[in-house]
């Protein structure tokens, strides 16, 4: 145990002391808020500096009147198509919209001319506007007053409450659950890949620099392997904790700063477009209730468990692969059995688990140890029956023990083998060898 501890210390310090670790750890969290900040800033600047764009409209139906917005103004000056084209070419108009005689049931041939390619925003804006106008016109022609339609338009928001066996009611929100599952799953996936690779590189380095034979004359190969896996896990956790603290602080600072910069009106607009036209007080209460409904402790504990469990299980496999090969390029052939379940879990998280956490596929993905670390995080925020969680965790522990045992067998022999390119068959032989 003492020796494992020595190895853990070495692996941890050798990585944490590196300048590159310090750089990546400190800069990565700066990058996201920085990018976010730049985008918001550009968007705000653009809004301020944008001049009004005038668009000429030729409506051969004499039916449509398009309201001008902050960005676009529409002029109806009865020009001919040729005159309008000229206006666009000499820059007096940003573009022109030609609405030929159309059949309201299937409007065809509406064309936009512009000197530059129109952006999606403008086209969407025009399409939506025309759609509304045509619909209104058709309602009017069928004898219905569009005002009535506006009056009967209703906004429906479903509040969802989960009932558990004890009859406790919890307000839940699918979007928040989705976001939590999404983030947790991706983090675990990335962590396994990045740090798993570090384990592999470390093992290959010790093997190719021929230091390993000296080491195993002082401690058991298994101690060396576990020390490395645990030491690198500690590096990952350190990095994660620093990131969480830094991102938390920076995001608060950046959004706080931008919040002060943003003119009141724009802030209101952004808020209202996100949350619907108006938000009665009861809804605000629901949101607070919902946030308190998320079992933070359970999610955090599960995250830590699956984060470490998944890493340890895959970490052993990465160590096994590293021990079998002489150079990272040779490792490629053995990576498939490791990457495939990880990618299945990752895809499964998006395709099945987050959309329907209680489907059969989601259930199995979150139970099978190779996929559960990623898939289960997609379910936890929605609430998982205790028995399923226990089963999944138990199997993950078994999975970890199994891969560690397997990797230990390969590692022990692999680290002393040089110059041979092992195949799956040789690996199998090593696993079967007793000593």
């Amino acid at each position, binding site marked *: 145990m003492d020796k494992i501890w020595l190895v853990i210390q070495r692996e941890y310090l050798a990585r944490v002391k590196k300048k590159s670790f310090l750089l990546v750890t400190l800069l990565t969290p700066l990058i996201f808020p920085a990018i976010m900040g730049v985008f918001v800033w550009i968007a705000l600047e653009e809004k301020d500096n944008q001049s009004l764009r005038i668009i000429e409209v030729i409506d051969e139906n004499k039916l449509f009147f398009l309201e001008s917005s902050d960005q676009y103004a529409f002029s109806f000056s009865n020009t001919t198509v040729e005159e309008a084209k000229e206006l666009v070419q000499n820059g007096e108009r940003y573009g022109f919209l030609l609405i030929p005689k159309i059949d309201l049931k299937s409007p065809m041939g509406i064309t936009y001319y512009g000197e530059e390619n129109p952006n999606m925003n403008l086209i969407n804006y025009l399409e939506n506007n025309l759609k509304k106008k045509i619909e209104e016109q058709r309602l009017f022609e069928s004898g219905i007053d569009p005002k009535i339609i506006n009056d009967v338009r209703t906004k429906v928001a479903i509040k969802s409450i989960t009932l558990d066996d004890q009859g406790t009611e919890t307000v839940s929100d699918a979007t928040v659950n989705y976001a939590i599952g999404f983030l947790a799953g991706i983090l675990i996936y990335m962590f396994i890949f990045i740090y798993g690779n570090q384990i592999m590189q470390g093992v290959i380095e010790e093997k190719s620099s021929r*230091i390993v034979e000296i080491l195993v*004359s*002082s401690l058991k190969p298994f101690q060396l392997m576990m020390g490395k896996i645990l030491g690198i896990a500690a590096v990952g956790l350190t990095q994660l904790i620093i990131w969480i603290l830094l991102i938390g602080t920076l995001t608060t600072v950046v959004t706080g700063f931008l919040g002060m910069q943003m003119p009141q009106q724009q802030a209101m607009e952004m808020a209202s477009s996100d949350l619907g036209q108006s938000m009665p007080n009861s809804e605000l209460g629901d949101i607070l209730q919902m946030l308190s409904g998320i079992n933070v402790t359970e999610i955090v504990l599960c995250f830590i468990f699956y984060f470490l469990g998944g890493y340890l299980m895959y970490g052993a496999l990465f160590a096994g692969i590293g021990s079998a090969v002489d150079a990272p390029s040779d490792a490629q052939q053995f990576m498939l059995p490791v990457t495939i379940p990880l990618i299945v879990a990752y895809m499964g998280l998006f395709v099945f688990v987050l959309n329907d956490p209680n489907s059969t596929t989601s259930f199995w993905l979150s139970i099978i140890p190779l996929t559960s670390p990623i898939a289960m995080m997609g379910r936890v925020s929605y609430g998982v029956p205790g028995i399923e969680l226990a089963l999944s965790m138990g199997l993950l522990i078994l999975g970890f023990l199994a891969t560690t045992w397997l990797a230990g067998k390969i590692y022990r022999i692999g680290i*002393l083998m040089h110059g041979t390119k092992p195949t799956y068959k040789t690996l199998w*032989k090593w696993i079967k060898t007793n000593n």
Partner: protein
Amino acid sequence: MLKIEKLSKSYNATKALSDVDLEVSKGIIFGLLGPNGAGKTTLIRIINQIIDSDSGSIFINGELLAPKHIAQIGYLPEERGLYKKMSVWDQMIYFARLKGLSSVDAKSKINHWLDRLEISNWKQKKIEDLSKGMAQKVQFISTVIHNPPLLILDEPFSGFDPVNAEIIKNEILALKEKGTTVILSTHRMESVELLCDQVAMINRSKKILDGTIKQVKSSFRPEVYSITIDHLVQMIPKEWAAKQEDSSFHFTLPLSGKTPNQLLHELMEYGEIMKFQEVIPSMEEIFIHQVKASENG
């Protein structure tokens, strides 16, 4: 110090060691000889508990080999290296602690050795910044840092330049003076004759020879004499293939069942005997001869 009884090990179908017996007494330098692939490294790895044997037993000072003996053995493998990005100091502390030394003990011993091999100024340098010779000194110190009573050196001079090889050779002799038992595995015979008190030769998984250098050499006397005759009075038979140099003739003759005196007496009829000396084989010759013999038979 070390006793090995009927040690066997095979990898799948390949025999690496079959029924090897060895005894190494305390305070000597023991040469473990054999061509590449003979089973030397396997034997050494088993003594170091890196791999397990299939059968047979090993005793250190009369005790059956156990994990606690790790601290009593210093091992310099043939395939060796250091962490390139680690400093000399950190690296040595790590190795010393892995061998069970306390932090305080490790520090004083490392300082002693760094001074002794004159690399104290390089403590904080990373291995990748050292010259090859200096890295090899660091490697050697890492092997002996815990004062092991048994030192196992696998091809210790390979990769060393002559100056450093000399330094290391003297250190090995100094350790022997202090009572350390050294097992030296090599196929370079000149260092064997120079350093070893006893040798054992392994070929194709079997021990084919052992004993002191003198014993080995005397058991391999080919009973051939090197002769020089001057002032010829009778023509020397052509089949002796003598080489003439001025008036002297040089050639070798086997005893062919005669005693040396009988042979000498016969030779005196041809002229004046200037030289009559038994040809003693070098370890190199014995080595090659034995390897060939065991391969043919």
